């Protein structure tokens, strides 16, 4: 799929030379202009992060003095390192737990037929498609009675019991593992767990990686969940909640806030650059197969 990406697709086999040059220029001009427009917000945020607080309140685009110390001040003003830590704990543990619980379930739903499998799968589809606000209140009451609010646990623990979207996704990928392989393994006397571990998982690695990535980012970017469960306890705030909420009694200091925003963007972008292939493959596979 990725190699395909470099192939040129469409039309105009017989366009004239001059016309095709004009088309090429206008297309690339459009791309450049759009790229500038798309990157501009990040550039401006970066510029603002280097301004002094006073300058951010005035109408100016370029910092007069380049106050790089703002990036250090961020850590002094807000417990940003702690927030990043919480985000990491939330994202990593929920992804790991999700994989542990969802991969086997997806395997069963993809490969094994039994009475009730369609009911369960149907329930998963509905669970996946319904807005979380529909179920959020009784679940909150439950966690409140268990005295677990004020922490990330209500957000992490449910992953022990599977995640609807991930199960759906993984099932779609597992369906593509040819039956011959699993049949052969069964003939050799392998049990389901062995088949899953030895055959299905290695063959569906891109899919599993994609599901893991989705889960990671869903947790990393989650605002509503932390709003509900961690707002009362500042020590448990992840980055997504802290960035939106931390406004001291003196109002928003925009240069610090913009520096925070850049710092929040950096890990994600870095992760993308390192895992680009996995990223793109996973996301396109999801979209095309979903």
């Amino acid at each position, binding site marked *: 799929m990725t190699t395909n990406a470099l192939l040129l697709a469409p039309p105009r086999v017989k366009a004239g030379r001059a016309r095709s040059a004009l088309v090429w220029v206008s297309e690339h001009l459009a791309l450049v202009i759009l790229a500038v427009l798309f990157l501009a917000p990040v550039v401006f945020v970066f510029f603002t992060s280097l301004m002094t607080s006073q300058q951010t309140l005035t109408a100016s685009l370029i910092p007069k003095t380049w106050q790089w110390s703002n990036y250090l001040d961020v850590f002094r003003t807000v417990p940003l390192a702690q927030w990043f830590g919480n985000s990491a704990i939330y994202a990593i543990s929920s992804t790991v737990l999700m994989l542990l619980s969802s991969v086997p379930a997806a395997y069963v739903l993809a490969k094994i037929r039994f009475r009730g499998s369609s009911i369960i799968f149907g329930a998963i589809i509905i669970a996946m498609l319904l807005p979380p606000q529909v179920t959020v209140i009784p679940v909150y009451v439950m966690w409140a*009675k268990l005295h677990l609010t004020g922490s990330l646990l209500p957000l992490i623990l449910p992953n022990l019991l599977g995640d609807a979207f991930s199960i759906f996704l993984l099932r779609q990928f597992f369906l593509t593992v040819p039956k011959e392989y699993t049949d052969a393994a069964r003939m050799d006397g392998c049990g389901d767990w062995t088949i899953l571990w030895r055959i299905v998982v290695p063959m569906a690695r891109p899919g599993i990686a994609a599901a893991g990535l989705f889960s990671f980012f869903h947790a990393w970017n989650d605002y509503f969940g932390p709003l509900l469960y961690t707002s009362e306890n500042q020590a448990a705030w992840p980055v997504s909640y802290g960035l939106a909420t931390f406004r001291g009694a003196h109002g928003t200091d925009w240069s610090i806030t913009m520096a925070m925003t850049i710092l929040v963007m950096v890990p994600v972008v870095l992760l993308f650059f390192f895992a680009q292939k996995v990223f793109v493959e996973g996301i396109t596979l999801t979209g095309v197969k979903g």
Partner: protein
Amino acid sequence: MTHNPARPRLVLAAAAIAATTALVLAGCSSDGGSAAVGKAPKTLSGTVSLWHFFTDREAKVIQKAVDGFEKENPKVKVEVHTGQDDTKLQQVISSGGNVDVALSYSSDIVGNFCTSGAFVDLGPYITRDKVDLDDFPDSVRSYTQFDGKRCALPLLADVPALYTNTAMLSAAGITAAPKTLDELSADALALTTYNDDGSIKTLGFNPTLGFYENSPGNFSASVGAKWLKDNGKADVADSTWPEVMTWQKALVDKIGWDKLKTFTAGLGQEFSASNAFQTGQVAMQLDGEWRTAFIADQTPDLAYETSPFPAATDHSELYGSGVISGNVVGIGKGSKNPELAWALMKYLTTKTSVVVDLANGLKNVPTTTSALESPDLVVSKQFTTFIDIAKNDKTVARPSSPLGAGYGQPLADFWTKWQAGSGTGLDSGLKTVAKQMDNSLALVEGP
């Protein structure tokens, strides 16, 4: 797919189980009845948690008071949680968290917490320890109880008044701050300057509802408008609200709504150094007494004066009074050490030296008469205005309601839309607002 005949029964069973679980989980709340309290302990020891909403500079002031309490009771340790607003307090208390002493942002929480039991009934404690309730001014005392149950004590109050920029007023030839709404309008227009393109450069007074402290409640004092009738139903349609609303709308129209909107959108954040009054973009502003502390901290060179907010011309007897609201302290339902919590609460709210220190540090109005009249109270020239308003016997507080702050929302929403429109439909609009308030209250309280 074969239809399992057991399925309908399965669904019913599931529903029954779910319903039972819900009931059991919900009913697990232990009955926080007002049990009789035992004798006061001789020495205090243990850990007690204090939850409040202050941060930064203001949190330090609270900490100093807390340190004093720990010094007086060496066996006691106070665990302070800062930055806890009302929503968070509700969350923690209702999920059974260990909240011993809660300092709430406003008295809005009282109606709700008293009825639901989230704040413990203080009656028995007050009687046992012979707390002098008369030391609290009437207005302040009224908003710490609901329906006969007192579940909170007041701790420092907020009073809004008019701030005026001395330099800008004298430059425009205005010698004294306006005392009536008509004078305010005239002065506001005189003080407004424009840019070359017609947009507003500096504004005399920003009447926009929703801007900073411009709320219906704060404007109500000018005409003595009431929220609720004695029977608990909304009084919005029958009280004097139309008077102050028409005044506000007239000023908005004279300035021009579009210009006003554009200008307001570009103003700085209320609690930062870019506050419009502190930067001189607005010459006169309705604001609370805490503004004196912010100015001293952020823009100490600003020359300004304070005076009571103007009253309507035909309500001149109201001039000098205002609306008062404040922070309240209560003992959370889940408190494991209510005696210790009560001791800390008494210390913070009734001990004159502590109240005075807190008032000085936070630049809020103290809530006990002893503190109001204490010689240790640092009162700048500008702060005297607020003390006087707090002591004025016509000063009122917004009545408590189980809806909390929510019940003022319909009027605020209506007024916000109405100020931008043609100015018609005031009476019918207020009738609708009254009905909405009654409906909301009915939903929460019951028929």
